[in-house]
Structures are given as structure tokens and as C-alpha cells.
């Protein structure tokens, strides 16, 4: 019989050996080294790496299309060694992959890759977010002016948005996530923003300007409609707020509307 806590020691040694492909066997505990020396050990190594890499390839389809499967799988193999999944839901694996790509030397000439990875991640998060009915535009239309200053619109559980300075990340992502044939028009190098949200089971996306992103940021942090409007105007003083609200409501960007009981602080100051 092996002494107590031997299972823990076995698991520590086995787990280390799984990822340490270049480790010399004399650096491993002897009972683990004798396992690594058997041909069957490679089955576990291959299965673990393949499972992780396949998941990243599936979860980052636009990145894979941009760089090719071979490049993506090589980059994923590097990521996996220091970022094993924390949870067994591999559908959700990849948080941190965009930051990894931003700092990955071989990706230095592809500065848009990290942003594209972020939008692939948005798609996954929107796809699996909890179900929530979007709020009806009519409810907002019927708010009394006095209520507007106390109204907080909560972004829909599936809503994700981002603004990208000086990079057409959204256009690049769209062309690679759901490629259309013959979309050979030249990409204009400009700022772009996007709203990604799930409606009736399908993940959709729409252009969003910098003011719109600021507006949603304010809503997400629980600020009132009037504060969110100020945040949008601070980014673009000429922003058409009525049109922005209509577009966001139409896209299903909000999941809940709260009217605060307390007088807003602005009026009591």
C-alpha cells in the first residue's frame, strides 16, 4: 500500500508531466517518470492539448480565418500551456486569449488580431448569456419627463459593445465571422464601434458610434438615463440622442428598466 496523500502527489506529478513536453524524465518523480516513458502517456498529452486547441479554434473562428488554422493552432498551443481551462465548459474557454494575442510577438504585425478575438469572444458570451426579454420601446416612449431623470436602463444580459480607435476591427471581424462571397471592397482604415446582442436565439451585431458606447457604459454602471445622455454628449456634443435611443431599443440592447425611488443626486445638490 502507498502512504496517505499519495493520490495528491500522483495528481501533482501527472498534471505537471502532461504539459511539460520537454521535461527530462529524471526531473520527474520516479513513479511518474515510469508512466511518461510508456507510449500510452502521449495519448493523454495529445488528448488534453487537442481538446483545448480544438476549443480555441472553434471559439475564435474569425481569428482562425484571418491567420489560418495552422497559425491559430500553434498560437493556441502556446496559450494553453499557461492558461488551461478553469472550467469544463469548453464552449466558454478562451477568456484572456485576446490579451495573449496582443502581447504575442508573432502577432506583432497583425495589430487588429486582438480586437477581432475580442469580438469572437463577445459572440460566444452573447450566445450563452441568460435568456431575458428585451424591453419594449413603447415603455420608454411613455415615460413622463420627470421619470426620465430617475430611470436606469440595464443593458440586456447578452449585450456587449466596444469602440476601436483607428482600426476597422468591426469590418474585419464581420468579413471573417460570417464571410460573404466576393466581398473584395477595400477596407477603409477608420474608427469603428459595434453592439453585439442576441435576439430570439440569434446573435446579431450593429454599428455603434463612440457616443453610443459611452451611453451604454454609463447604463451598465447603473447611471440614470440623463447621466448616460450626458456621457454620450461628452464624447460627441452633436450626438442625436433620440436616434441613438431608438436604435438601441430596436436592437434589443436593454433587458430591464428601473425607476429609482430616490430623488436623483443632481437635483439635491
Amino acid at each position: 500500500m502507498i502512504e496517505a496523500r499519495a493520490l495528491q502527489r500522483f495528481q501533482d506529478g501527472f498534471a505537471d508531466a502532461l504539459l511539460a513536453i520537454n521535461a527530462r524524465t529524471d526531473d520527474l518523480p520516479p513513479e511518474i517518470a515510469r508512466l511518461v516513458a510508456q507510449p500510452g502517456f502521449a495519448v493523454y498529452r495529445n488528448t488534453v492539448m487537442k481538446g483545448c486547441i480544438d476549443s480555441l479554434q472553434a471559439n475564435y473562428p474569425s481569428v482562425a480565418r484571418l491567420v489560418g488554422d495552422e497559425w491559430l493552432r500553434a498560437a493556441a498551443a502556446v496559450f494553453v500551456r499557461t492558461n488551461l481551462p478553469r472550467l469544463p465548459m469548453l464552449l466558454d474557454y478562451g477568456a484572456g486569449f485576446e490579451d495573449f494575442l496582443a502581447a504575442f510577438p508573432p502577432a506583432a504585425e497583425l495589430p487588429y488580431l486582438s480586437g477581432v478575438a475580442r469580438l469572437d469572444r463577445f459572440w460566444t458570451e452573447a450566445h450563452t448569456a441568460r435568456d431575458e426579454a428585451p424591453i419594449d420601446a413603447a415603455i420608454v416612449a411613455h415615460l413622463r419627463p420627470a421619470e426620465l431623470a430617475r430611470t436606469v436602463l440595464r443593458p440586456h444580459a447578452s449585450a456587449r459593445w466596444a469602440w476601436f480607435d483607428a482600426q476597422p476591427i468591426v469590418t474585419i471581424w464581420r468579413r471573417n465571422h460570417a464571410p460573404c462571397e466576393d466581398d473584395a471592397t477595400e477596407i477603409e482604415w477608420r474608427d469603428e464601434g459595434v453592439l453585439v446582442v442576441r435576439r430570439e436565439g440569434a446573435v446579431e451585431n450593429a454599428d455603434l458610434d463612440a457616443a453610443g458606447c459611452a451611453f451604454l457604459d454609463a447604463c451598465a454602471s447603473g447611471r440614470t438615463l440623463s447621466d448616460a445622455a450626458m456621457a454620450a454628449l461628452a464624447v460627441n456634443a452633436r450626438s442625436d440622442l433620440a436616434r441613438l435611443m431608438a436604435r438601441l431599443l430596436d436592437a434589443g440592447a436593454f433587458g430591464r428598466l428601473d425607476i429609482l425611488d430616490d430623488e436623483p443626486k443632481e437635483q439635491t445638490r
Partner: protein
Amino acid sequence: MTMESSAGLSLKPQHFEAARDCSADELWFEVHPENYMVEGGPRLAWLDAIRARHPVSLHGVAMSLAADDAPDAAHLHRLAGLVDRFEPALVSEHLAWSTWRGAYRPDLLPFPRTNEALVRIADNIDRAQDRLGRRIAIENPSHYLEIEGHDYDEIEFLTAFARRTGCALLLDVNNVFVSARNVGGAAERYLDAFPGALVAEIHLAGHSVDPTLGDRLLIDSHDAPVDAAVWALYERLIARIGPRPTLIERDDNLPAFETLLAERRRAEAVLRAPARQAAALA
């Protein structure tokens, strides 16, 4: 559940519509619950649609029962949510570990069958069954390594924790075949000694040969039709223990849905003729 003499199929997203609309008698589907551990969205809606017409079995790959640690409470909570929502006919797990010190490895990792492991695994199964409020079935693993320090042979070990916890066993016939080839032993002897009364479900799957070692190392890859030798072992098993719900397990290199249905019909022919099989063996 009247699944005793019926065969089921692994359910993959590529086959959702064909699966939902299939009217084959007593057809049931098995899924990995980890693929449905999402907060909402179309995945759960798809499985709702399947469940509205067919029984469902949840076959977990990630409870990590053989880790020297209690199963992750959040994982059990998510699984319990799926059990409540889909009311599965069967719930099963693997005799393996995967989550360890906060990281998940997508594989079914081995361990020495020691007294220490037996106590830990029995405790972990108790925790899982308590949390889920039902009996679960534990699957015999595929082996690729000769591990030192076993205190029990595999059937003694499976029987011991089943007695302690009241859990059932899931007998994967392909795993028995693959393991016998890889680490020695006779598949027939293993199956003949397996405690039939504890078997709640049977798995049949295809395997592949190692790309470099060939048929000296078989991989439990679930990417091919069930092998002729595995069908023969299955017939021998059913003749001895009688019919049990049987899954045609296919996870990769998916064929047309109709091809899987044909394999399922072959399993049902075995399940519904145990007497004939017994006579053939005698």
C-alpha cells in the same frame, strides 16, 4: 423509464433536426452536460426541443471523481440545474479525474486503485448523489498505461465503491476491449466477471489505432463504427446479464444520422434476442 431493451444515440449539434424529428421507437439521446452548462440561449432551447419528444441521458465528463478533492460545488450546482430542467432517464460519470488545483484538463485521467482512492471516490460519489438527489452510474475507464501501486483489480474496485455508495455502473464494452489490448488481460474474462446486477447502462463505441504504434495501442476515439470484436463481446454480455439501455457513442468524424440509426438497430436486435444469443453461445 422503459429503456431497458432500447438503444440510444449520442446527440451532436450537427444532427439536432434529424434527431428531434426522428420517430424511431423508444429512441433516446445522450449528451455531455458540460456542453449545456450555459446560462441561456439556443443550446438549452435545442435540448428542450429534443427532450419534448425523446428521453435524455446526461453523461458527464468533468466531475473529476478520482481527484483527491471534493467535486466542485459550482459544477454540481450546474449539473443539478440540468437534471431539474431535463429530467434525464440516466445520469452517469467517469471513473477519472480532470479538474485539479483549479484547472480543467479535457481528458479522463487515470490513477492507482488504492484504498486511499477508494475512500475518496466513494465520498465524492456520495456527495454527487446527495446533491443531485438521485443515483448515478459510473463508467469503467479506458487504459493506456500500466500504473504501479494498485491495491484492487478494477472489478473489485468498481464493486467496492458501488456497494458503499449505492451507485450503479456504466459498462463501456469498447473500453474493456481497448484496455485489454493496451494493458493486458482478457476482455471476455473481464466481462464475465462484471457484476451484471449493477449495470444501469452499456456503451458501445468505435476506436482507432495509434498513428505511430498501430494496433499495439488502441485509442478510445469514438470516431468510428463499433468494431466487430466489440459487437461479439456485447452479444456475449447481453446473453449473460440480459438487456440494458445501450448507447451507440459517437463523438467525432460524424456519419449521417441514418448510419447511426443503423448501428442502433443492430444493438436493439441483440437486446431483444437474449435467448437466441444464449443459445448461440451454448
